[in-house]
Protein backbone atom coordinates (compact mmCIF):
# COMPACT_ATOMS: atom_id res chain seq x y z
CA UNK A 1 0.00 0.00 0.00
CA UNK A 2 2.89 2.42 -0.73
CA UNK A 3 1.16 3.86 -3.80
CA UNK A 4 -1.23 6.50 -2.67
CA UNK A 5 -4.51 6.35 -4.53
CA UNK A 6 -6.30 9.71 -4.58
CA UNK A 7 -9.52 8.20 -5.89
CA UNK A 8 -9.68 5.78 -3.00
CA UNK A 9 -9.13 8.65 -0.59
CA UNK A 10 -12.05 10.52 -2.15
CA UNK A 11 -14.25 7.47 -1.72
CA UNK A 12 -13.32 7.20 1.94
CA UNK A 13 -14.19 10.86 2.47
CA UNK A 14 -17.59 10.37 0.85
CA UNK A 15 -18.17 7.33 3.02
CA UNK A 16 -17.34 9.29 6.16
CA UNK A 17 -19.72 12.08 5.23
CA UNK A 18 -22.51 9.59 4.54
CA UNK A 19 -21.82 7.86 7.81
CA UNK A 20 -22.08 11.13 9.68
CA UNK A 21 -25.34 11.94 7.94
CA UNK A 22 -26.78 8.58 9.01
CA UNK A 23 -25.83 9.13 12.64
CA UNK A 24 -27.43 12.59 12.57
CA UNK A 25 -30.53 11.10 10.98
CA UNK A 26 -30.85 8.49 13.74
CA UNK A 27 -30.47 11.15 16.42
CA UNK A 28 -33.14 13.20 14.76
CA UNK A 29 -35.51 10.22 14.59
CA UNK A 30 -35.12 9.48 18.27
CA UNK A 31 -35.53 13.13 19.30
CA UNK A 32 -37.92 13.49 22.30
CA UNK A 33 -40.84 14.87 20.27
CA UNK A 34 -40.91 11.81 17.99
CA UNK A 35 -39.71 9.25 20.51
CA UNK A 36 -43.08 7.66 21.27
CA UNK A 37 -44.03 7.44 17.61
CA UNK A 38 -40.68 6.05 16.52
CA UNK A 39 -40.53 3.35 19.17
CA UNK A 40 -44.07 2.17 18.45
CA UNK A 41 -43.49 2.17 14.69
CA UNK A 42 -40.32 0.07 14.80
CA UNK A 43 -41.75 -3.11 16.39
CA UNK A 44 -44.89 -3.06 14.24
CA UNK A 45 -42.74 -2.82 11.13
CA UNK A 46 -40.71 -5.87 12.12
CA UNK A 47 -43.84 -7.73 13.23
CA UNK A 48 -45.24 -7.46 9.72
CA UNK A 49 -42.43 -9.61 8.34
CA UNK A 50 -41.67 -11.74 11.41
CA UNK A 51 -43.56 -15.03 11.69
CA UNK A 52 -45.88 -15.83 14.57
CA UNK A 53 -43.82 -17.21 17.49
CA UNK A 54 -44.51 -20.77 18.57
CA UNK A 55 -44.54 -22.08 22.12
CA UNK A 56 -41.91 -24.81 22.32
CA UNK A 57 -41.21 -27.28 25.12
CA UNK A 58 -37.74 -28.79 25.04
CA UNK A 59 -36.25 -31.50 27.26
CA UNK A 60 -32.52 -31.01 27.36
CA UNK A 61 -30.11 -32.93 29.61
CA UNK A 62 -33.06 -34.01 31.76
CA UNK A 63 -34.43 -30.49 32.28
CA UNK A 64 -37.69 -29.15 30.83
CA UNK A 65 -37.71 -25.76 29.15
CA UNK A 66 -40.54 -23.71 27.69
CA UNK A 67 -39.57 -21.14 25.08
CA UNK A 68 -41.47 -18.80 22.76
CA UNK A 69 -39.51 -19.18 19.53
CA UNK A 70 -39.53 -17.89 15.99
CA UNK A 71 -40.57 -21.06 14.09
CA UNK A 72 -37.39 -20.78 12.01
CA UNK A 73 -35.27 -21.51 15.09
CA UNK A 74 -33.27 -24.69 14.67
CA UNK A 75 -32.63 -26.97 17.62
CA UNK A 76 -28.99 -25.84 17.50
CA UNK A 77 -29.94 -22.16 17.75
CA UNK A 78 -32.42 -22.89 20.54
CA UNK A 79 -29.66 -24.66 22.50
CA UNK A 80 -27.02 -22.01 21.91
CA UNK A 81 -28.90 -18.71 21.74
CA UNK A 82 -31.84 -19.39 24.05
CA UNK A 83 -30.65 -22.01 26.56
CA UNK A 84 -27.04 -20.78 26.43
CA UNK A 85 -25.73 -24.31 26.03
CA UNK A 86 -22.89 -23.29 23.74
CA UNK A 87 -21.10 -26.65 23.75
CA UNK A 88 -22.83 -27.70 20.55
CA UNK A 89 -21.12 -25.76 17.78
CA UNK A 90 -22.35 -24.20 14.58
CA UNK A 91 -19.94 -25.01 11.79
CA UNK A 92 -21.85 -25.01 8.51
CA UNK A 93 -25.51 -24.90 9.57
CA UNK A 94 -26.27 -27.25 6.67
CA UNK A 95 -25.67 -30.70 8.11
CA UNK A 96 -22.30 -31.16 6.50
CA UNK A 97 -19.77 -30.77 9.32
CA UNK A 98 -21.29 -32.50 12.36
CA UNK A 99 -20.09 -29.92 14.93
CA UNK A 100 -23.70 -29.57 16.16
CA UNK A 101 -24.21 -33.31 16.83
CA UNK A 102 -26.41 -34.08 19.86
CA UNK A 103 -28.28 -37.20 20.97
CA UNK A 104 -32.04 -37.36 20.49
CA UNK A 105 -33.70 -40.23 22.36
CA UNK A 106 -30.19 -41.71 22.51
CA UNK A 107 -29.53 -41.46 18.77
CA UNK A 108 -27.08 -39.02 17.20
CA UNK A 109 -28.56 -36.25 15.07
CA UNK A 110 -27.44 -32.95 13.58
CA UNK A 111 -29.17 -30.28 15.63
CA UNK A 112 -28.81 -27.71 12.83
CA UNK A 113 -31.12 -29.81 10.62
CA UNK A 114 -34.06 -29.92 13.05
CA UNK A 115 -36.50 -27.15 13.85
CA UNK A 116 -36.75 -26.77 17.62
CA UNK A 117 -40.55 -26.70 17.41
CA UNK A 118 -40.56 -30.15 15.81
CA UNK A 119 -38.54 -32.00 18.47
CA UNK A 120 -40.95 -31.49 21.37
CA UNK A 121 -41.18 -34.52 23.61
CA UNK A 122 -37.78 -35.82 22.53
CA UNK A 123 -34.99 -36.39 25.03
CA UNK A 124 -32.03 -34.27 23.99
CA UNK A 125 -28.52 -34.76 25.34
CA UNK A 126 -25.80 -32.24 24.59
CA UNK A 127 -22.09 -32.35 25.44
CA UNK A 128 -22.97 -30.47 28.66
CA UNK A 129 -25.09 -33.43 29.76
CA UNK A 130 -22.51 -36.14 29.15
CA UNK A 131 -20.45 -36.01 32.35
CA UNK A 132 -21.84 -37.35 35.64
CA UNK A 133 -21.12 -34.41 37.95
CA UNK A 134 -17.34 -34.04 37.99
CA UNK A 135 -16.79 -37.43 36.42
CA UNK A 136 -16.16 -37.16 32.70
CA UNK A 137 -17.58 -39.65 30.22
CA UNK A 138 -15.00 -42.28 29.26
CA UNK A 139 -14.82 -40.86 25.73
CA UNK A 140 -14.15 -37.36 27.05
CA UNK A 141 -11.26 -38.82 29.08
CA UNK A 142 -10.00 -40.71 26.02
CA UNK A 143 -10.06 -37.52 23.91
CA UNK A 144 -7.87 -35.79 26.50
CA UNK A 145 -5.48 -38.72 26.85
CA UNK A 146 -5.16 -39.16 23.08
CA UNK A 147 -4.93 -35.41 22.40
CA UNK A 148 -7.73 -35.92 19.89
CA UNK A 149 -8.13 -32.27 18.91
CA UNK A 150 -6.23 -29.15 18.01
CA UNK A 151 -8.52 -26.11 17.81
CA UNK A 152 -11.33 -28.00 19.56
CA UNK A 153 -14.22 -26.57 17.58
CA UNK A 154 -15.43 -29.90 16.20
CA UNK A 155 -14.72 -31.75 19.46
CA UNK A 156 -18.17 -31.62 21.12
CA UNK A 157 -19.73 -32.97 17.92
CA UNK A 158 -17.02 -35.60 17.53
CA UNK A 159 -17.53 -36.77 21.10
CA UNK A 160 -21.34 -36.94 20.83
CA UNK A 161 -21.07 -38.83 17.52
CA UNK A 162 -18.35 -41.05 19.00
CA UNK A 163 -20.50 -41.94 22.02
CA UNK A 164 -23.29 -43.00 19.65
CA UNK A 165 -20.86 -44.82 17.37
CA UNK A 166 -19.67 -46.96 20.32
CA UNK A 167 -23.23 -47.50 21.56
CA UNK A 168 -24.35 -48.67 18.09
CA UNK A 169 -21.53 -51.22 17.94
CA UNK A 170 -19.81 -49.51 15.04
CA UNK A 171 -16.49 -48.96 16.81
CA UNK A 172 -14.81 -52.27 15.94
CA UNK A 173 -11.99 -51.64 13.48
CA UNK A 174 -10.41 -48.29 12.69
CA UNK A 175 -11.91 -48.56 9.21
CA UNK A 176 -15.36 -49.11 10.71
CA UNK A 177 -14.95 -46.05 12.91
CA UNK A 178 -13.81 -43.88 10.01
CA UNK A 179 -16.87 -44.86 7.98
CA UNK A 180 -19.33 -44.41 10.82
CA UNK A 181 -17.75 -41.10 11.89
CA UNK A 182 -17.85 -39.67 8.35
CA UNK A 183 -20.56 -37.19 9.33
CA UNK A 184 -18.04 -35.30 11.47
CA UNK A 185 -15.38 -33.18 9.85
CA UNK A 186 -12.17 -32.03 11.61
CA UNK A 187 -10.39 -29.31 9.66
CA UNK A 188 -7.30 -29.58 11.86
CA UNK A 189 -7.04 -33.17 10.71
CA UNK A 190 -6.91 -34.83 14.13
CA UNK A 191 -8.59 -37.92 12.71
CA UNK A 192 -5.93 -40.46 13.75
CA UNK A 193 -6.19 -39.43 17.38
CA UNK A 194 -9.99 -39.22 17.26
CA UNK A 195 -10.13 -42.82 15.96
CA UNK A 196 -7.65 -43.91 18.66
CA UNK A 197 -9.73 -42.24 21.39
CA UNK A 198 -12.92 -43.95 20.20
CA UNK A 199 -11.12 -47.31 20.07
CA UNK A 200 -9.86 -46.79 23.65
CA UNK A 201 -13.33 -45.95 24.95
CA UNK A 202 -14.93 -48.81 23.03
CA UNK A 203 -12.35 -51.29 24.46
CA UNK A 204 -12.94 -49.95 27.98
CA UNK A 205 -16.70 -50.40 27.53
CA UNK A 206 -16.29 -53.99 26.30
CA UNK A 207 -14.11 -54.56 29.39
Amino acid at each position, binding site marked *: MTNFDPERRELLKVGMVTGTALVVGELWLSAPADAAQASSAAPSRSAASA*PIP*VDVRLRVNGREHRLPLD*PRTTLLDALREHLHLTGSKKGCG*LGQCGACTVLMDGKRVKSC*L*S*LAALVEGRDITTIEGLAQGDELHSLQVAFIERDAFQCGYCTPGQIM*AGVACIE*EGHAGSAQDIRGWMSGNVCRCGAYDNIVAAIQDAARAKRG
Partner: protein
Amino acid sequence: MHPFTLERPRDVAATLALRAQAGRNDAPAEYIAGGTDMIQLLQEYVRRPDRLVSLVGLLDNRIESGPQGLTIGAAATMADVASHPAVVQQYPVIAESLLESASPQVRNQATMAGNLMQRPRCPYFRDVGYDACNRRTPGSGCSAMIGVNRWHAVLGTSRSCIAAHASDVAVALVALDAAVELQGLGGRRTLPLDDFYRLPGDTPHIATVLQPGELITAIRVPASAAARRSHYLKVRDRASFEFALVSAAVALDMDGARIRQARVALGGVGTKPWRVPQVEKALVGGSLDSAVLRRAAVLAAQGARGSGHNDFKIELMQRVIVRAIQTVGARA
Protein backbone atom coordinates in the same frame (compact mmCIF):
# COMPACT_ATOMS: atom_id res chain seq x y z
CA MET B 1 -34.73 -18.40 6.17
CA HIS B 2 -37.68 -16.64 4.64
CA PRO B 3 -40.33 -16.10 7.36
CA PHE B 4 -42.93 -18.88 7.43
CA THR B 5 -45.91 -19.86 9.50
CA LEU B 6 -45.38 -23.28 11.04
CA GLU B 7 -48.46 -25.51 10.97
CA ARG B 8 -48.53 -28.50 13.30
CA PRO B 9 -51.80 -30.25 12.39
CA ARG B 10 -53.32 -32.87 14.70
CA ASP B 11 -54.06 -35.56 12.14
CA VAL B 12 -53.65 -36.49 8.49
CA ALA B 13 -57.09 -35.13 7.46
CA ALA B 14 -56.27 -31.69 8.88
CA THR B 15 -52.87 -31.91 7.19
CA LEU B 16 -54.24 -32.60 3.71
CA ALA B 17 -56.68 -29.69 4.02
CA LEU B 18 -53.73 -27.28 4.26
CA ARG B 19 -52.92 -28.20 0.64
CA ALA B 20 -49.16 -28.12 0.97
CA GLN B 21 -47.60 -29.00 -2.35
CA ALA B 22 -44.71 -31.42 -2.12
CA GLY B 23 -42.28 -31.71 -5.01
CA ARG B 24 -43.00 -28.31 -6.58
CA ASN B 25 -40.45 -25.57 -6.29
CA ASP B 26 -42.98 -22.77 -6.78
CA ALA B 27 -45.37 -23.86 -4.01
CA PRO B 28 -46.34 -21.39 -1.23
CA ALA B 29 -46.77 -24.25 1.27
CA GLU B 30 -44.34 -27.15 1.79
CA TYR B 31 -44.23 -30.23 4.00
CA ILE B 32 -41.46 -30.89 6.50
CA ALA B 33 -40.80 -34.24 8.20
CA GLY B 34 -37.22 -35.28 9.04
CA GLY B 35 -36.13 -31.88 7.75
CA THR B 36 -32.64 -32.89 6.65
CA ASP B 37 -33.11 -31.58 3.09
CA MET B 38 -35.83 -29.00 3.74
CA ILE B 39 -33.76 -27.12 6.35
CA GLN B 40 -30.87 -26.86 3.88
CA LEU B 41 -33.22 -25.52 1.22
CA LEU B 42 -34.72 -23.00 3.65
CA GLN B 43 -31.35 -21.90 5.05
CA GLU B 44 -30.04 -21.26 1.54
CA TYR B 45 -33.26 -19.49 0.39
CA VAL B 46 -33.67 -22.08 -2.37
CA ARG B 47 -37.20 -22.61 -1.02
CA ARG B 48 -39.11 -19.68 0.44
CA PRO B 49 -42.55 -21.07 1.38
CA ASP B 50 -44.92 -18.88 3.42
CA ARG B 51 -46.24 -21.92 5.24
CA LEU B 52 -44.47 -25.02 6.44
CA VAL B 53 -46.71 -27.97 7.33
CA SER B 54 -45.17 -30.45 9.77
CA LEU B 55 -45.72 -34.17 9.28
CA VAL B 56 -43.88 -35.04 12.50
CA GLY B 57 -45.74 -37.71 14.47
CA LEU B 58 -48.54 -38.07 11.91
CA LEU B 59 -47.39 -40.82 9.57
CA ASP B 60 -46.68 -44.52 10.09
CA ASN B 61 -43.07 -45.44 10.79
CA ARG B 62 -43.49 -49.21 10.94
CA ILE B 63 -41.54 -51.65 8.78
CA GLU B 64 -43.44 -54.86 8.06
CA SER B 65 -42.23 -57.86 6.12
CA GLY B 66 -44.37 -60.78 4.97
CA PRO B 67 -44.54 -63.39 2.20
CA GLN B 68 -46.02 -60.83 -0.20
CA GLY B 69 -43.40 -58.23 0.40
CA LEU B 70 -42.18 -55.33 2.47
CA THR B 71 -44.18 -52.32 3.64
CA ILE B 72 -42.26 -49.30 4.87
CA GLY B 73 -44.16 -46.52 6.63
CA ALA B 74 -43.45 -43.07 5.22
CA ALA B 75 -42.00 -41.86 8.52
CA ALA B 76 -39.58 -44.77 9.03
CA THR B 77 -36.06 -43.41 9.25
CA MET B 78 -33.31 -44.41 6.81
CA ALA B 79 -31.38 -45.91 9.77
CA ASP B 80 -34.31 -48.03 10.94
CA VAL B 81 -34.88 -49.47 7.47
CA ALA B 82 -31.17 -50.09 6.88
CA SER B 83 -30.84 -52.11 10.09
CA HIS B 84 -34.14 -54.02 9.88
CA PRO B 85 -33.29 -57.77 9.80
CA ALA B 86 -35.84 -58.59 7.07
CA VAL B 87 -34.53 -55.78 4.87
CA VAL B 88 -30.92 -56.86 5.39
CA GLN B 89 -31.67 -60.51 4.58
CA GLN B 90 -34.36 -60.34 1.90
CA TYR B 91 -33.79 -56.93 0.28
CA PRO B 92 -30.03 -56.30 0.68
CA VAL B 93 -29.99 -53.72 -2.14
CA ILE B 94 -32.26 -51.48 -0.03
CA ALA B 95 -30.11 -51.77 3.10
CA GLU B 96 -26.89 -51.24 1.14
CA SER B 97 -28.18 -48.21 -0.73
CA LEU B 98 -29.24 -46.60 2.54
CA LEU B 99 -25.95 -47.30 4.32
CA GLU B 100 -24.08 -45.78 1.38
CA SER B 101 -26.15 -42.57 1.74
CA ALA B 102 -25.60 -39.44 3.81
CA SER B 103 -24.08 -39.69 7.32
CA PRO B 104 -25.13 -41.72 10.38
CA GLN B 105 -26.72 -38.62 11.93
CA VAL B 106 -28.76 -37.78 8.84
CA ARG B 107 -29.86 -41.41 8.50
CA ASN B 108 -31.26 -41.19 12.06
CA GLN B 109 -33.29 -38.08 11.15
CA ALA B 110 -34.33 -38.46 7.52
CA THR B 111 -37.58 -40.27 6.74
CA MET B 112 -37.99 -42.68 3.83
CA ALA B 113 -40.67 -40.59 2.13
CA GLY B 114 -38.55 -37.48 2.61
CA ASN B 115 -35.61 -39.29 1.01
CA LEU B 116 -37.74 -39.95 -2.07
CA MET B 117 -38.74 -36.25 -2.13
CA GLN B 118 -35.23 -34.77 -1.76
CA ARG B 119 -34.22 -32.13 -4.29
CA PRO B 120 -31.27 -32.65 -6.63
CA ARG B 121 -27.76 -31.64 -5.64
CA CYS B 122 -27.15 -29.51 -8.73
CA PRO B 123 -24.93 -26.72 -7.32
CA TYR B 124 -26.70 -24.13 -9.46
CA PHE B 125 -30.11 -25.17 -8.14
CA ARG B 126 -28.76 -24.97 -4.58
CA ASP B 127 -27.08 -21.56 -4.94
CA VAL B 128 -29.43 -18.60 -5.36
CA GLY B 129 -26.39 -16.56 -6.38
CA TYR B 130 -27.07 -18.02 -9.83
CA ASP B 131 -30.19 -16.48 -11.33
CA ALA B 132 -30.62 -19.07 -14.06
CA CYS B 133 -32.20 -22.29 -12.83
CA ASN B 134 -35.40 -23.52 -14.46
CA ARG B 135 -35.96 -25.94 -11.59
CA ARG B 136 -35.79 -23.19 -8.95
CA THR B 137 -37.25 -20.33 -11.01
CA PRO B 138 -39.30 -21.54 -14.00
CA GLY B 139 -38.19 -19.97 -17.27
CA SER B 140 -34.93 -18.51 -15.93
CA GLY B 141 -32.57 -20.80 -17.89
CA CYS B 142 -30.03 -23.44 -16.92
CA SER B 143 -26.61 -22.53 -15.52
CA ALA B 144 -25.40 -26.14 -15.46
CA MET B 145 -25.49 -26.64 -19.22
CA ILE B 146 -22.80 -23.99 -19.72
CA GLY B 147 -21.25 -24.44 -16.29
CA VAL B 148 -19.50 -27.23 -14.42
CA ASN B 149 -21.68 -30.28 -15.04
CA ARG B 150 -19.54 -33.16 -13.86
CA TRP B 151 -22.27 -34.38 -11.45
CA HIS B 152 -25.15 -34.02 -13.86
CA ALA B 153 -27.43 -36.44 -15.68
CA VAL B 154 -26.86 -38.01 -19.09
CA LEU B 155 -30.27 -39.72 -19.34
CA GLY B 156 -33.74 -38.18 -19.23
CA THR B 157 -32.38 -34.65 -19.60
CA SER B 158 -34.21 -31.86 -21.42
CA ARG B 159 -33.31 -28.47 -22.82
CA SER B 160 -34.53 -27.08 -19.45
CA CYS B 161 -32.70 -29.20 -16.89
CA ILE B 162 -29.88 -31.75 -16.54
CA ALA B 163 -29.91 -32.20 -12.75
CA ALA B 164 -29.40 -35.80 -11.61
CA HIS B 165 -31.80 -37.38 -9.13
CA ALA B 166 -30.05 -37.56 -5.77
CA SER B 167 -31.62 -40.49 -3.92
CA ASP B 168 -29.77 -43.80 -3.63
CA VAL B 169 -32.59 -45.83 -2.12
CA ALA B 170 -35.00 -44.69 -4.85
CA VAL B 171 -32.72 -46.46 -7.35
CA ALA B 172 -32.88 -49.68 -5.32
CA LEU B 173 -36.66 -49.36 -4.97
CA VAL B 174 -37.22 -48.77 -8.68
CA ALA B 175 -35.10 -51.85 -9.45
CA LEU B 176 -37.37 -53.93 -7.18
CA ASP B 177 -40.64 -52.62 -8.73
CA ALA B 178 -41.58 -50.75 -5.55
CA ALA B 179 -44.77 -48.71 -5.35
CA VAL B 180 -45.69 -45.66 -3.30
CA GLU B 181 -49.03 -45.36 -1.50
CA LEU B 182 -50.36 -41.83 -1.67
CA GLN B 183 -53.09 -40.11 0.30
CA GLY B 184 -54.69 -36.89 -0.86
CA LEU B 185 -57.86 -34.85 -0.70
CA GLY B 186 -59.36 -37.14 -3.35
CA GLY B 187 -58.53 -40.36 -1.49
CA ARG B 188 -55.79 -42.96 -1.74
CA ARG B 189 -53.91 -44.29 -4.74
CA THR B 190 -50.90 -46.52 -5.35
CA LEU B 191 -48.36 -45.83 -8.08
CA PRO B 192 -45.20 -47.59 -9.23
CA LEU B 193 -42.31 -45.44 -7.97
CA ASP B 194 -41.05 -45.28 -11.55
CA ASP B 195 -44.26 -43.47 -12.57
CA PHE B 196 -44.25 -41.25 -9.48
CA TYR B 197 -41.32 -39.17 -10.74
CA ARG B 198 -41.71 -36.86 -13.72
CA LEU B 199 -39.04 -36.21 -16.30
CA PRO B 200 -37.99 -32.54 -16.29
CA GLY B 201 -39.22 -31.71 -19.81
CA ASP B 202 -40.18 -28.04 -19.92
CA THR B 203 -41.36 -28.04 -16.28
CA PRO B 204 -38.40 -29.19 -14.16
CA HIS B 205 -39.81 -27.34 -11.12
CA ILE B 206 -42.47 -30.09 -10.86
CA ALA B 207 -40.63 -33.23 -9.71
CA THR B 208 -43.47 -35.67 -9.05
CA VAL B 209 -47.13 -36.37 -9.86
CA LEU B 210 -48.26 -35.33 -6.34
CA GLN B 211 -51.38 -33.17 -6.20
CA PRO B 212 -51.92 -30.30 -3.71
CA GLY B 213 -52.10 -31.75 -0.21
CA GLU B 214 -51.18 -35.23 -1.37
CA LEU B 215 -48.43 -37.10 0.45
CA ILE B 216 -46.65 -40.46 0.55
CA THR B 217 -47.96 -42.71 3.32
CA ALA B 218 -46.04 -45.92 2.60
CA ILE B 219 -43.63 -47.69 0.27
CA ARG B 220 -44.43 -51.25 -0.85
CA VAL B 221 -41.82 -53.64 -2.21
CA PRO B 222 -42.93 -56.99 -3.64
CA ALA B 223 -41.01 -60.05 -2.41
CA SER B 224 -38.97 -61.90 -5.03
CA ALA B 225 -36.08 -64.30 -5.46
CA ALA B 226 -34.19 -61.51 -7.22
CA ALA B 227 -34.63 -59.14 -4.28
CA ARG B 228 -32.83 -61.64 -2.02
CA ARG B 229 -29.88 -61.67 -4.42
CA SER B 230 -29.43 -57.96 -4.89
CA HIS B 231 -26.67 -55.41 -4.52
CA TYR B 232 -26.03 -51.65 -4.68
CA LEU B 233 -22.75 -50.43 -6.10
CA LYS B 234 -22.02 -46.73 -5.71
CA VAL B 235 -19.10 -44.88 -7.32
CA ARG B 236 -18.36 -41.44 -5.87
CA ASP B 237 -15.60 -38.92 -5.27
CA ARG B 238 -15.19 -39.86 -1.58
CA ALA B 239 -15.53 -43.24 0.14
CA SER B 240 -18.38 -42.01 2.37
CA PHE B 241 -20.81 -39.13 2.94
CA GLU B 242 -21.03 -38.28 -0.76
CA PHE B 243 -23.61 -38.47 -3.53
CA ALA B 244 -23.23 -40.90 -6.43
CA LEU B 245 -21.42 -40.12 -9.63
CA VAL B 246 -22.77 -43.42 -10.94
CA SER B 247 -24.52 -46.20 -9.06
CA ALA B 248 -26.30 -49.40 -9.97
CA ALA B 249 -28.95 -51.39 -8.14
CA VAL B 250 -29.03 -54.96 -9.45
CA ALA B 251 -31.14 -57.96 -8.53
CA LEU B 252 -30.65 -61.43 -10.03
CA ASP B 253 -32.68 -64.58 -10.17
CA MET B 254 -30.21 -67.30 -11.12
CA ASP B 255 -30.76 -70.70 -12.70
CA GLY B 256 -27.48 -72.37 -11.84
CA ALA B 257 -24.80 -70.34 -13.61
CA ARG B 258 -27.30 -68.64 -15.92
CA ILE B 259 -29.36 -65.52 -15.33
CA ARG B 260 -33.10 -66.33 -15.25
CA GLN B 261 -34.15 -62.76 -14.58
CA ALA B 262 -32.26 -59.52 -13.95
CA ARG B 263 -33.29 -56.11 -12.73
CA VAL B 264 -31.01 -53.14 -13.17
CA ALA B 265 -31.54 -49.49 -12.24
CA LEU B 266 -28.99 -46.68 -12.33
CA GLY B 267 -28.35 -43.70 -10.08
CA GLY B 268 -26.37 -40.51 -10.63
CA VAL B 269 -26.95 -40.65 -14.38
CA GLY B 270 -30.68 -39.97 -14.79
CA THR B 271 -32.98 -37.06 -14.03
CA LYS B 272 -34.94 -39.71 -12.14
CA PRO B 273 -33.95 -43.19 -10.91
CA TRP B 274 -33.18 -44.92 -14.20
CA ARG B 275 -34.35 -48.47 -14.93
CA VAL B 276 -32.72 -50.08 -17.99
CA PRO B 277 -35.14 -52.78 -19.28
CA GLN B 278 -33.16 -53.23 -22.50
CA VAL B 279 -30.14 -54.30 -20.42
CA GLU B 280 -32.28 -56.62 -18.27
CA LYS B 281 -33.69 -58.32 -21.36
CA ALA B 282 -30.25 -58.84 -22.87
CA LEU B 283 -29.00 -60.44 -19.63
CA VAL B 284 -31.66 -63.18 -19.58
CA GLY B 285 -30.21 -66.63 -20.29
CA GLY B 286 -26.64 -65.31 -20.20
CA SER B 287 -23.76 -66.18 -17.90
CA LEU B 288 -21.74 -63.97 -15.57
CA ASP B 289 -18.85 -63.87 -18.02
CA SER B 290 -17.40 -60.35 -18.39
CA ALA B 291 -17.72 -60.24 -22.19
CA VAL B 292 -21.35 -61.40 -22.03
CA LEU B 293 -22.23 -58.86 -19.36
CA ARG B 294 -20.40 -56.15 -21.23
CA ARG B 295 -22.53 -56.74 -24.36
CA ALA B 296 -25.70 -56.26 -22.31
CA ALA B 297 -24.40 -53.27 -20.32
CA VAL B 298 -23.54 -51.31 -23.47
CA LEU B 299 -27.29 -51.02 -24.14
CA ALA B 300 -27.60 -48.74 -21.08
CA ALA B 301 -25.97 -46.00 -23.15
CA GLN B 302 -28.92 -45.86 -25.57
CA GLY B 303 -30.10 -42.25 -25.68
CA ALA B 304 -27.41 -41.06 -23.24
CA ARG B 305 -26.07 -37.57 -23.86
CA GLY B 306 -23.27 -35.89 -21.98
CA SER B 307 -22.95 -32.15 -21.39
CA GLY B 308 -19.15 -32.03 -21.41
CA HIS B 309 -17.75 -32.65 -17.94
CA ASN B 310 -20.06 -35.61 -17.34
CA ASP B 311 -19.35 -37.47 -20.59
CA PHE B 312 -17.34 -40.04 -18.61
CA LYS B 313 -20.54 -41.28 -16.98
CA ILE B 314 -21.68 -42.97 -20.19
CA GLU B 315 -18.73 -45.38 -20.12
CA LEU B 316 -18.58 -45.58 -16.33
CA MET B 317 -22.21 -46.66 -15.94
CA GLN B 318 -21.64 -49.68 -18.19
CA ARG B 319 -18.65 -50.76 -16.09
CA VAL B 320 -20.63 -50.24 -12.89
CA ILE B 321 -23.41 -52.51 -14.20
CA VAL B 322 -20.90 -55.27 -15.04
CA ARG B 323 -19.14 -55.00 -11.67
CA ALA B 324 -22.41 -54.95 -9.71
CA ILE B 325 -23.79 -58.04 -11.50
CA GLN B 326 -20.56 -59.98 -11.03
CA THR B 327 -20.49 -59.10 -7.33
CA VAL B 328 -24.04 -60.26 -6.66
CA GLY B 329 -23.75 -63.24 -9.02
CA ALA B 330 -20.81 -64.53 -7.02
CA ARG B 331 -22.86 -64.52 -3.82
CA ALA B 332 -24.33 -67.83 -2.77
